[in-house]
């Protein structure tokens, strides 16, 4: 077997790895999510350490420090040409339109070639004219994967792509991986959610924070500690809901036509008369295909978007008449790109904000999880996990009635997911809150025993639990219950 034995050293990190680079094989690297895990993909792809003029710019010294370590290759050599897909969908596509991205990457392809790229992941030709910033997270990942698999690389490093994909996306990915494997390519997945990959993985490697080593044991698909935590958490739902109480959130015939891409007119509205209710103290998960409009529903619920038709009520009051300050105190929303919600620069500024609010729960949680961070610690150097935790804790107030978490598990390992649900457990023990999670992770849906809202063709279908969903006609063509 071919391995590359390497060391990557920065001022605060040393990674020692035996990375498999054998052709015709599919590898999974999983384990602890930290800065090292975040860098491995880029190291294998030859992106780090950085080369070029930027290395000599002192202004960027601190920012690029982690990308600019020393690499020692002790044995073997890195693959010659590597396609690297990063866990953050925004980092894979650089130009403004999908068409531009493909044109540059494929070096001026014909119109037919352009369209062929997209069909690899089931995207139609209308995507060519779409602006990348208007794509959903899953659509961005699909476009990046479609481009990568249209090019001839000897190795494909795919970091954290699976949580972003719907069932069709995962099927397309498996097809592409199998076909690349047959052509003698090496495919490396860096994943924490990998149950849908189990039939295609040849070997598993575990990263423990310092080294990457081959796993001799049968790998586990769901961490038992996390499983237990989710089951305990699911019991926190209010068992008896007051019938007289207004729903926390109510959508009535909500229609939205062209969002999020005004550059092309849709044949059918994105949301076509969406109606549902979220009852007080209950747990809900919103599922659906990539680009179905799940995150758009969250944006409508927090009043940053206006529907074309229909009404949205929060605690019985039409949302358009609600004061923004009241809404901010009552809805805690963490988006799928949490780093975009960071508006302060240091932990100290967040600490000050927490102290200034009269919420003991918030103060206790902040002290528990951010005690070791000094005031000057820049928020920009936090991991995705730290940012999610920081936002969750700082956005909670005594008046919070609804928590909306968009893709809360992407980019997190089992231990970090455990902590997120531990914090939620703490919050739910103190406050009576409704929870809405937007996800593709059906294991999470099942363990939470939540009610399910399926956004399908612009309409919402409601189910009491995952068993009720499984009984729905043709559901298996949309979701993978494995």
């Amino acid at each position, binding site marked *: 077997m071919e391995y590359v034995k390497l060391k990557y050293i920065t001022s605060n990190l040393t990674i020692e790895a035996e990375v498999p680079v054998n052709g015709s094989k599919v590898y999974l690297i999983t384990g602890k999510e930290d800065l090292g895990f975040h860098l491995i993909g880029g190291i294998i792809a030859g992106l780090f350490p950085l080369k*070029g003029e930027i290395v000599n710019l002192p202004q*960027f010294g601190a920012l690029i420090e982690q990308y600019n370590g020393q690499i020692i290759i002790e044995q073997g050599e890195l693959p010659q040409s590597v396609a690297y897909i990063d866990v953050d969908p925004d980092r894979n596509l*650089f130009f403004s339109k999908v068409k531009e991205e493909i*044109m540059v990457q494929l070096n001026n392809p014909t119109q037919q070639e352009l369209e062929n790229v997209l069909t690899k992941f089931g995207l139609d030709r209308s995507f060519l004219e779409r602006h990348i910033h208007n794509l959903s997270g899953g659509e961005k990942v699909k476009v990046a994967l479609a481009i990568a698999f249209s090019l001839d690389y000897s190795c494909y490093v795919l970091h954290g792509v699976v949580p972003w994909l719907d069932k069709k996306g995962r099927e397309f990915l498996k097809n592409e991986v199998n076909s690349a494997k047959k052509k003698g390519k090496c495919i490396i997945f860096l994943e924490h959610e990998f149950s849908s990959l189990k039939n295609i993985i040849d070997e598993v490697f575990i990263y423990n924070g310092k080294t990457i080593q081959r796993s001799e044991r049968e790998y586990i698909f769901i961490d038992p500690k996390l499983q237990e935590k989710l089951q305990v958490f699911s019991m926190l739902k209010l068992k008896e809901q007051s019938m007289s109480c207004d729903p926390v959130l109510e959508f009535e015939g909500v229609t939205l036509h062209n969002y999020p891409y005004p550059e*092309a007119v849709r044949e059918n509205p994105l949301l076509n008369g969406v109606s549902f209710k979220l009852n007080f103290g209950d747990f809900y998960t919103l599922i659906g295909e990539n680009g179905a409009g799940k995150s758009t529903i969250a944006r409508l619920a927090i009043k940053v978007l*206006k529907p074309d038709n229909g009404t949205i009520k929060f605690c019985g009051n039409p949302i358009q008449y609600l004061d*923004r300050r009241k809404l901010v105190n009552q809805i805690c929303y963490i988006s799928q790109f949490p780093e975009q919600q960071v508006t302060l620069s240091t932990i100290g500024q967040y600490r000050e904000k927490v102290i200034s609010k009269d919420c003991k729960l918030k103060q206790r949680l902040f002290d528990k999880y951010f005690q070791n961070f000094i005031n000057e610690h820049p928020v920009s150097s936090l991991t995705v996990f730290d940012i999610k935790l920081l936002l969750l804790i700082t956005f909670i107030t005594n008046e919070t009635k609804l928590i909306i978490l968009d893709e809360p598990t992407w980019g997190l390992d089992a231990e970090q997911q455990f902590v997120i649900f531990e914090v939620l457990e703490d919050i739910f023990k103190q406050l009576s809150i409704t929870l809405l999670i937007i996800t593709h992770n059906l294991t999470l849906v099942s363990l939470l025993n939540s009610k399910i809202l399926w956004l399908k063709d612009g309409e919402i279908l409601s189910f009491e639990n995952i068993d009720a969903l499984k009984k729905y006609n043709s559901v298996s063509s949309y979701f993978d219950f494995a």
Partner: protein
Amino acid sequence: MKLKRSLEKIPLCVKVLILIIIALCFFFFIKESDLIIFSIFNLVVVAITGVVFYIIERRTFWVTVKLWIIGTGIYLIFAIPLTYFGCPLSPFIKFQSATNRYLFSIFFPLRLLVIFFVGLIFVEITSPIEFLKFGKIGLWFAFFFRIIEYTKQLIIETMIVLQMQGEWPDEGKGLFQLREARLIKQYAPKLLAVVFRNIILWFPWAYLCFNKIFIKIKESRK
């Protein structure tokens, strides 16, 4: 969309030429005697470019206008006393009449607005990849252009984030409501600081991507 598509088809060199002419036209002012004609011309160009920009990108249009009104307000606080006390307004010209001095001062923000409108229309109708045919210089232009596009996008996204946190007015509410105006005044510096920080954080990764693209293009040309 039709207008935008038609404008997109204009060759890059023509678009650049129009951009340069308008910028020069509004940066430099020739003679005091032409001030009235120049001001009328200014108004006409603002109206035309404003309508075009409103049609092709409504959201950015309103953001630009809001930020421009804030900037103009601040500018006028300083400009009116300076004009009154007869301080020099332009390095290119010394005004004889007080009326002309006031006219020049008041029209100055409009000149800036024209440059904003023309620049933003240019960004809307030009693709960064149009620059790539000019080799390494073209690549740097494309990179620079992408930074402008990204900044524009970041401003909108950051405004939404501030809105979510109750630190920016909701869409449709704005400068003419007292509370909203106060919010804008209070949080505009934060908006700019967050945008600037996010650009700095994005830059190394963006450079990395561009460097990779450049190496690929260079190899394919060998």
